């Protein structure tokens, strides 16, 4: 797989989704192009999907928020006869390298979360109209919607057939959403996840797998009516016009990926990448009207989009770069000012969208299976949303005092109000709450320093960085860390970091990602699924998987 997977797309390039806008209701049709697979070797039959289909869906969801804020209800449905969605394409999964499977699942999970949360974050409610077979990843697609309607034609069903059919799990949130979101009784969930053909009609409602069923002849009408009702009942403020998410400025070269505010340099010899973020080079827009006018060019939005794309690019196209180093450059006061405009106007739709987007981007950083380190050099601007990167990272190093021959402004870090609730992690804690899980009173103490440009000593005293080193130690310590990190087993790193990053309470989101990494990835490695005689490998051949019956 040498082809670059590009996460940027736009409606003119869609091959798998169609949208019809009808005032506050958008009808989103899944219509997967069989021949439109991202890679060779499989056809996307029966609305089955691969990463390419999901990249488009993620784009749909993102543009729905920014470009179509007038939309209050999105009805996800199939444009194909007799099938809603057959789930992730099995031949694609069977043929894919383990790393690709994991990244695929992770991205699809993030996309599911993004439209599931669109109601709470943006007032856009995704509901789902299911006609025909809705199986595996297809039902997971539906589960992330907030209201599920199923036609009662005595054939259409919802199903999670992964276990009986493929010897893997419905791991894109399937198991977790069945119990945690739909609150299906666990023994019924056990039955449901063991039968290939799933559950249809009224029983699907009784078990809580869907919200409503309608006779087939009334179904389309009922869906239209339900969507209208929900749009009318929505408390989302009316917004006349969105902004355009214009194409990102991006250059990909052999050793770097360069955006307008983000520079990714690839150090393949030492298996690491550096992401350098440039702070704003101009003052913040005067008000939200000015911000809206600048739109996608506004630093807060542009930077989030570029960072998001950079992370996805590294995850999927640079798998051997096991360490990501975050650096920033610029004036921290300007970062604070740009963020402040949005924080002060958080009831403005676009301010809200941009802040919510930062939240999602930072969550994407949290669940990235690479060692993350923040390097706070002189001349950097770790403030507000950029400061979050310090606490998303597994470790941070900060320059202490003046360095010989370095005339950049002294390294500081600046906390803002945003660091105390605007960008929570998947476990619903702020990164500071997670960092000081054992000493919650410290978080209160930190509030006294909001807005203060803390130097290394101050930051170190408050526990905000791992190490502060001066001129004498800096180079060696940072080099030693990086070399040591590069020598560890990447598997052990992934496991250790995922454990340490998410302290404390479980949420549906942490359960989805946690269960995915722990269980699905284990199962995806086991011979019972992916061995030569395993069920996933043999799927489609007619020959059953051969299992080693020993319980582990």
């Amino acid at each position, binding site marked *: 797989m040498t082809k670059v997977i590009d996460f940027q797309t736009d409606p003119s390039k869609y091959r798998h989704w169609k949208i019809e806008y009808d005032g506050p209701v958008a009808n989103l049709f899944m219509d997967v192009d069989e021949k439109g697979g991202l890679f060779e070797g499989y056809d996307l039959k029966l609305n089955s999907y691969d990463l390419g289909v999901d990249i488009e869906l993620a784009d749909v969801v993102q543009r729905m928020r920014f470009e179509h804020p007038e939309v209050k209800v999105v009805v996800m449905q199939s444009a194909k006869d007799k099938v809603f969605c057959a789930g992730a394409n099995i031949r694609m999964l069977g043929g894919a390298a383990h790393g690709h499977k994991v990244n695929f699942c992770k991205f699809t999970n993030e996309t599911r979360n993004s439209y599931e949360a669109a109601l709470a974050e943006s007032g856009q409610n995704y509901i789902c109209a299911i006609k025909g077979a809705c199986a595996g990843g297809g039902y997971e697609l539906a589960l992330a919607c907030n209201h599920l309607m199923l036609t009662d034609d005595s054939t259409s069903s919802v199903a999670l057939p992964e276990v009986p059919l493929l010897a893997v799990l419905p791991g894109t949130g399937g198991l977790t959403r069945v119990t945690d979101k739909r609150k299906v009784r666990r023994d019924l969930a056990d039955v449901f996840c063991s039968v290939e053909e799933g559950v249809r009609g009224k029983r699907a409602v009784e078990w809580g797998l869907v919200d409503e069923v309608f006779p087939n002849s009334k179904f389309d009408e009922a869906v239209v009516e339900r969507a209208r009702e929900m749009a009318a009942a929505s408390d989302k403020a009316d917004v006349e016009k969105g902004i355009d998410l214009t194409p990102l400025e991006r250059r990909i070269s052999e050793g770097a990926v360069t955006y307008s505010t983000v520079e990714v340099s690839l150090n393949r010899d030492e298996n690491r990448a550096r992401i350098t973020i440039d702070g704003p080079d101009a003052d913040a827009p005067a008000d939200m009207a000015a911000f809206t006018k600048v739109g996608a060019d506004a630093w807060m939005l542009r930077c989030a989009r570029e960072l998001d794309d950079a992370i996805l690019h590294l995850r999927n196209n640079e798998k051997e770069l096991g360490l990501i180093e975050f650096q920033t450059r610029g004036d921290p006061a300007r970062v604070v000012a740009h963020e402040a405009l949005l924080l002060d106007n958080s009831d403005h739709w676009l301010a809200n969208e941009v802040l919510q987007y930062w939240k999602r981007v930072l969550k994407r950083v949290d669940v990235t299976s690479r060692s993350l380190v923040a390097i706070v050099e002189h001349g950097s601007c770790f403030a507000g949303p950029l400061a979050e990167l310090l606490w998303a990272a597994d470790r941070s190093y900060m320059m202490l005092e003046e360095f010989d021959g370095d005339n950049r402004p002294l390294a500081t870090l600046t906390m803002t109000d945003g660091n105390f609730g605007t960008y929570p992690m998947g476990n619903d804690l702020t990164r500071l709450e997670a960092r000081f899980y054992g000493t919650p009173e410290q978080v209160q103490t930190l509030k006294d320093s909001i807005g203060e440009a803390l130097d290394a000593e101050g930051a170190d005293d408050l526990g905000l960085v791992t190490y502060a080193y001066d001129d004498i130690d800096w180079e060696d310590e940072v080099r030693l860390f990086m070399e040591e990190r590069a020598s560890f087993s990447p598997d052990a790193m992934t496991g250790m970091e995922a454990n340490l990053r998410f302290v404390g309470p479980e949420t549906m989101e942490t359960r989805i990602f946690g269960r995915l990494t722990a269980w699905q990835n284990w199962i995806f490695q086991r011979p019972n699924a992916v061995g030569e005689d395993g069920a996933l490998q043999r799927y489609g051949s*007619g*020959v059953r998987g051969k299992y080693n019956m020993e319980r582990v």
Partner: protein
Amino acid sequence: MLDLINVSYDTQIPNNVGLSEDKKVLKALEKWHPGYINWWNDLIPQNFQDSMVYLRTAVSVDPKGWAKFDYVKMPEYRWGVLLAPAVEDRKIPMGEHKGETAWQEVPGEYRNMLKRLIVIQGDTEPGSVEQQKFLGLTAPSLYDMRNLFQVNVEEGRHLWAMVYLLQKYFGRDGREEANELLVRSSGSEDAPRMLGAFNEETPDWLSFFMFTYFTDRDGKMQLESLAQSGFDPLSRTCRFMLTEEAHHMFVGETGVGRTIQATLEAMNANGITDPYDVGKIRDLGVIDLPTIQKKLNLHYTLSLDLFGQEVSTNAANAFNAGIKGRYMEQRIDDDHQLQNDTYPVTSIVDGQIKTEDVPALTAINMRLRDDYVRDAAGGVGRWNKLIAKSGIEFELKLPHEGFHRQIGVFSTVAVDPDGAIMSSEEWMKRQDEWLPTKADGDFIQSLMVPCYEAGKYASWIAPPKVGIDNKPGDFEYVKLHMA
């Protein structure tokens, strides 16, 4: 001891499965029975329900005399549960369990797969009765009406047979599926039948004959494959159903043949030699041969769709599991496991029709369809002999497999009856040359006037050579109740 050859009529349901001693299943079936009778009663117009029809009823599974003929009102027909006699020490004939003793109970691991196959098969049986429910009103003779009803009641019995298996072997799920079989209905918007061909209308008698010839032949192929099943009760059920199915093929083949015969005779009597002189031929009250070809094209291609995707995981799974075999499995000279074999399958590569070898296990559907095509060609040959004998120059042809397909590799390309790929615009423009138009349908419909007088036939169809049960030409096959 149960008498397995002579059907026990001591309960409501004729059977050779010891129902009277199987209280649980008997109860389940008796519960299902009223729904079934309602379904039947709502289906076919009342005056036919009250008519006496000369029908054969399966009374035994003895190959020498399994049926008896008598007048019966259809709702009183005795839909029985009859399994072909057990083969002693039968082995599973194919797949990974080949050579193991056939299963008398459902193996847990294959329960869902078996249930799905039985449900799909079961769903087609009442489907065709529903499609044909109004044909009695336009029957071209009492002989044909009787044949129609014979086919109908036997399809009804086949439904019974599948329902028995569901009730007996699949617990609560099976009972629910049995009920759903009565909920779905052909062409219904709310709950259509599962397969497309069973939701198409059967608007006229030529369609009925084409349907029984082509579509019931798919049923025959499916039953032949299920008759190989390692699940012995399914195998025995299907083997017995096949004895009845043969009559359905017969009705189709002779029905089309007699339609052609009437056309040929009328043309010769009026000195018409050009089969394309459609207007003149139609004026004689018969169906011109080009229109018959179009009907053939339609029904043949709809039936090909019933074989599903050429390369199919489900079919591979079912074969490997020993649940469903191939046509004439025993006569095929291979290892019956197919783990290392290949089979040629058509595919579309760069807009060309190509053949490529794929793992034979995954090509089970393709193979069955190939067998079907050969089987279906036989009757067409016999029809052509009739035409040749008349001296009229015309030949009926099975169109190319890629023509007019909705399912499988050909569904994405437009192919003409000779197998040439063309643009879909071109195809749409020319489809009236190949498929019946509304005008063709209207014309056929105009001929569909009932002929209820014993021994008489509508203009467009010739009398049969011999009667059913060797009855004479003027035999009153249906004593119509005309209240």
